[in-house]
């Protein structure tokens, strides 16, 4: 097996990380592994671990492909992606959209996923909470069908339809 980073030397160092039941594996040669030493793998154990170095490391890694020249800038607070990577802190709420897809690998690394499933503010989320409710009911419907609880399934189906009408 070759090193995932340089694709040249054989991989001798193997990292496994499990976050949210999602397994991430990384196979590196000893040289690239040294460059990675500040990465996530010491995250939980090392109290002197620096979050900033962690982001800076991500930026320099081919896993997080950003060209400094084309680094996007947030039009609201004027923070650019490179500066973000140096400090590990966004400038304002709009940065999330301004930096767009460049952030996906970062969130994969830090959080394991990129989709929020929790609380939704009432004001912002009228439609969103309906969508979530529909998803929840659909899962229940699936369960009901599997259990052959058809009466319950019919009731759930009607509730889903009613909510879908609301969304229109």
């Amino acid at each position, binding site marked *: 097996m070759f090193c995932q980073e340089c694709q040249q030397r054989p991989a001798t160092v193997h990292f496994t990380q*499990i976050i949210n039941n999602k397994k991430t594996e990384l196979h590196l040669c000893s040289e690239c592994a040294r460059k990675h030493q500040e990465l996530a793998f010491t*995250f939980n154990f090392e109290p002197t671990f620096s979050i900033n170095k962690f982001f800076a490391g991500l930026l320099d890694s081919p896993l997080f492909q950003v060209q400094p020249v084309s680094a996007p800038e947030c039009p609201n607070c004027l923070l650019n992606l490179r500066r973000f990577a140096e400090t590990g802190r*966004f400038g304002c*709420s709009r940065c*999330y959209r301004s930096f767009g897809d460049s952030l996906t690998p970062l969130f994969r690394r830090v959080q394991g996923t990129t989709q*929020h*499933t*929790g609380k939704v503010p009432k004001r912002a989320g009228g439609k969103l909470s309906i969508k979530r409710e529909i998803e929840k009911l659909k899962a229940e419907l699936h369960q009901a069908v599997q259990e052959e609880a058809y009466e319950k399934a019919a009731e759930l189906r009607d509730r889903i339809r009613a909510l879908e009408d609301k969304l229109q």
Partner: protein
Amino acid sequence: MSIADTLNNPYTKWMEGKGPYASIVISSRVRLARNLTDYPFPHLQDEETGRKILELGRKAVMSQEMEAQVGKMDFVEMEALSPLDRLFLVEKHLISPQLAAEEGPPRGLALSEDEAVSIMFNEEDHLRLQVIYPALQLEEAWELASKVDDILENSLDFAFDEQYGYLSCCPTNVGTGLRSSVMMHLPALAMTRMANKLFMELSKLGFVVRGMYGEGTEARGNLFQISNQITLGPSEEEIIANLAQVSRQVIEQEEMAREKMRKEGLAQLEDMVFRSYGILSNAYIISSEEAMAHLSNVRLGVDLGLLRDVQLQKLNELLVETRPAYIRKIAGKDIDAFNRDFKRAEIIRKSLAKI
């Protein structure tokens, strides 16, 4: 109780010493990170924006709805508090060190009368809402935090994204913005050297274990803080339920380790507990480190029923009363290290004698 009262009283709600597993779990805390749409985050703010955030926050907190549903809140700008008073609030676990720092943007604090709810303004995020309860009461703490969050949301425009959830200054807080933690006293696991192994396992499951005063602090007095690392992906209820479940497992392990110690070395255990009790009740000079170690032994003695007359609440209060800021507060600011150790010993002696 107003913030002025808070600053004169070491006691606060989480020290109650009552509730589920109170003998092992000292406190449960949930913290929500919230930001206002489009305003620059504190580290990029100018003074004017900072003031604006405080003003918006103050209004939201002092609303009639808040008073009716949660209770009266008091609001103070951090500038109005002396550095010593700020440090004292950190020691009481009501604010973070970052909010107490001397340098930084304009910051503010809102506190509920029972001190269970504290809202920090312009810390790393525009808002940090904390609820801290005694014993293992994570669900209860989350319920209250969510309720306060709902009320704040009526007058504040919280930054939210369909994909990323609540938007935070640091990517490690995005999504739910929820950091939940439990403070546990785990002497038997620490003494039988099982703690480190257990903590390694916990970290694999996405939990972080730290000392009592958070990031980078060691676990003095066998006090450990366990919290969730991931904030994006699982729902708030899942995060809370996971931490509660893991906490119960740790409690079970600690109880097993205690039982083992009791079976295999009751005499040594009694010797350790009463020796520590003797030192704390009689010493005239004691360092913070020594005090924490003996307080841990005494607490274990209370839990095991060896020491019957000491209340958990007293021991919880001593966790704060033996810290530097409190001692400086009651002894005058310029107390040196020697006199601090002297004063500390006096506080402990009196506290244990009052019983």
